[in-house]
């Protein structure tokens, strides 16, 4: 019981972090059709900016300033890079962001070096929040969940209740009509791309000190958020939310479980010898298989439900 609850909480907080990333990716994709390969790179930039800012100004200003800086950078990338490539089609756009992820990684290594940099959790958020039976739940995890939830509600309100949100939604399906009404659709695109990048930057600010701030952090999350977006259904924010939580909980549970196929067979009375030909398969524990889990889920979803959990269109 204790194990289940704590793992569930950890899984949910990890899943919410994934959602902070995948929501920006989904927004950009559903608006512009652009698959931002460099999305996790903006997450990394957010963490590095926050580490720099928090050492000079403290954590709280960094929480606000770092995402804004990342957002501005994203908007500049859209204005001077993507907009030019847009005329060639979606695949060159993807190639552009692929090259961008390469360059951002190199520049980060150039400025901050190849090792991880110190980025500590602020003192007021350090320490346990509550104790469940014997295990403590850290304050910072709860803070991460809070930030993600606030962000989720803010996006929802922005998209559905404000004028700019309505224009964004309209530009999503009828860009020509919106343009005819006198709105600057390319500028809306720039705002959305910058906004999506800012969300990734925010995830970096809160994720960077929960995990490690290092040049490899983009690669570790990058492919998982792609899985989240496909599993949730391309372009569906709700789907991305469910898929993020699903994958977050799945991975957290899997890492913690130390059972293998062999031990299950032993439990029901079938022993597997060291000499049996598939011994290496039977002796794999679930925690060893954990890194593969999201990708297996991806394959299963594609076979049984190709449009994703909440997706509406076949691609």
């Amino acid at each position, binding site marked *: 019981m204790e194990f289940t609850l704590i793992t569930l909480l950890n899984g949910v907080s990890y899943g919410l972090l994934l959602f902070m990333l995948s929501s920006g990716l989904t927004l950009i*994709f559903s608006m512009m*059709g652009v*698959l931002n390969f460099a999305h996790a790179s903006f997450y990394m930039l957010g963490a590095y900016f926050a580490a720099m800012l928090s050492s000079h100004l403290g954590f709280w200003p960094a929480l606000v300033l770092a995402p804004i800086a990342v957002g501005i950078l994203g908007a500049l990338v859209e204005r001077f*890079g993507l907009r*030019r*490539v847009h005329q*060639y089609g*979606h*695949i*060159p756009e*993807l*190639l*552009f962001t*692929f*090259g*961008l992820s*390469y*360059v951002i990684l*190199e*520049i980060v290594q*150039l*400025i901050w*070096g190849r090792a991880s940099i110190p980025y500590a959790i602020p003192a007021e958020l350090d320490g346990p929040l509550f104790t469940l039976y014997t295990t403590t739940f850290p304050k910072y995890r709860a803070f991460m969940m809070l930030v993600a939830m606030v962000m989720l509600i803010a996006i929802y309100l922005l998209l559905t209740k404000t004028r700019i949100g309505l224009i964004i939604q309209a530009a999503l399906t009828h860009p020509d009509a919106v343009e005819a009404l006198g709105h600057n659709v390319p500028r809306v695109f720039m705002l959305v791309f910058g906004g999506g990048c800012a969300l990734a930057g925010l995830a970096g600010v809160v994720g960077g000190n929960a995990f490690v701030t290092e040049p490899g952090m983009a*690669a570790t999350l990058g*492919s998982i958020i*792609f*899985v989240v*977006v*496909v599993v949730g259904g*391309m372009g569906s924010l709700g789907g991305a939310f469910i898929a993020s939580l699903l994958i977050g909980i799945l991975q957290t549970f899997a890492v913690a479980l130390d059972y293998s196929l062999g031990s299950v067979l032993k439990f029901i009375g079938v022993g597997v010898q060291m000499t049996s030909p598939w011994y*290496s398969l039977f002796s*794999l524990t679930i925690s*060893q*298989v954990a*890194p*593969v889990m*999201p*990708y*297996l889920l*991806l*394959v299963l979803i*594609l*076979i049984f439900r*190709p449009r994703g959990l909440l997706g509406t269109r076949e*691609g």
Partner: protein
Amino acid sequence: MKRHILSHSVGTLLVWFGFAVLLIVAPKVFNQGASLSLLSQMGTLMIFGLSFNMLLGQGGMLSFGHAVYSGLGAFFAVHAMNLAAAGVLTIPVSLIPLVGGLAGMLFGILFGYVTTKKSGTTFSMITLGMVELVFACSLMFPKFFGGEGGISTNRVMGNPFLGITFGPQIEVYYLIAFWLFVSTVAMFAFTHTPLGRMINAVRDNPERAEFIGYDTQWVRYLTLIISAFFAGIAGGLSAINFEIVTAENVSALRSGAVLLFSFIGGIGYFYGPMIGAVAGVFLTVMLSDFTKAWQLYLGIFFIFIVMFAPGGIAGIWASYYRMFKFRKMRQIWPAFWKICCAGLLTVSGAIMAIEMLYQRSLGGDQEPIAKIAGVSLNVFESMPWCIAALLCLIGGVGFFFTQRRFIAVWNSAMAEIEVAILKGDA
């Protein structure tokens, strides 16, 4: 279709003949030091790039996980060689690439069924998931994949055939050259088969292809299987060449590299990836000797190609050849040399700044001297930085003012050429 290929002009036959001759004499011309090993690497990368371009250039399928097929092919090839050396299998080294190809094809049948369900950007995301899946699996099964150290082998095994042991690098080079020639001919022939034509149609307009009665998913699937076969051949050859295969061979990194090089070479042309392979090996091997920042340059160069020359090096070459052929070089020359000078200034300023930045971040306080093209610069003095900034500034301003004129001149020359072609046709 055979008749179609044979009826090609004598010129095409001459090109193939020239290619064969080039492959034969290349090691005689470039015979210093490590050039033989470079040529061997280029050969395998050419096959790999061509098979990749079957998907991207001809099918419009951008794969982030093509190394899965070449890497698994390489692992099967390495195990086949070890089994043959142990006497379990009887297979000569010269046919080992075929083992790799068949293994690649097998996994193409398996994985392709899932990946080709989608097209466009979704396909790309799924291939990225696939390569991560296989890479994660490779660390889970150390017996087959050899864990961190990989699987090594010895290519000198079995009885020598006609005195060929594959011990010396030159014999390996000719084996690679042979497979390269055969694969290139086969892949070129593929572009003229009905399937090769259909995949072009599916790339350009899947809806219309479906209306004629073709299953686009099936066309993509078949193309991917054939492409995986050739990727496997490339993997088998690299296993023979390096005598070691590690998990890095099935990684997203390797897949990204073939994507970078093929695109730089030019995906719109059949021979583009071959140029890309030559450029790629040069960049990774030669440039990395000169500078620590080579990956940054590679990335920036790639972005530049995507933004300004989507046809790659082959596309740049083709358009300038066209200008030359229609005698328009003189017309664009005044604007051309100005923009080249401006570009050169900007690039040299940027290189200077990047090199000094690298020296500053990696060398620390102990080594303040950056050596660029034989000139030593102290990165803690402000003078070199000012020079770099000035170069960038002058070049940038010059570029800004010359580019408009250049684009105008270029477009008008292009329009004149099009008129000339139309007149020629009429």
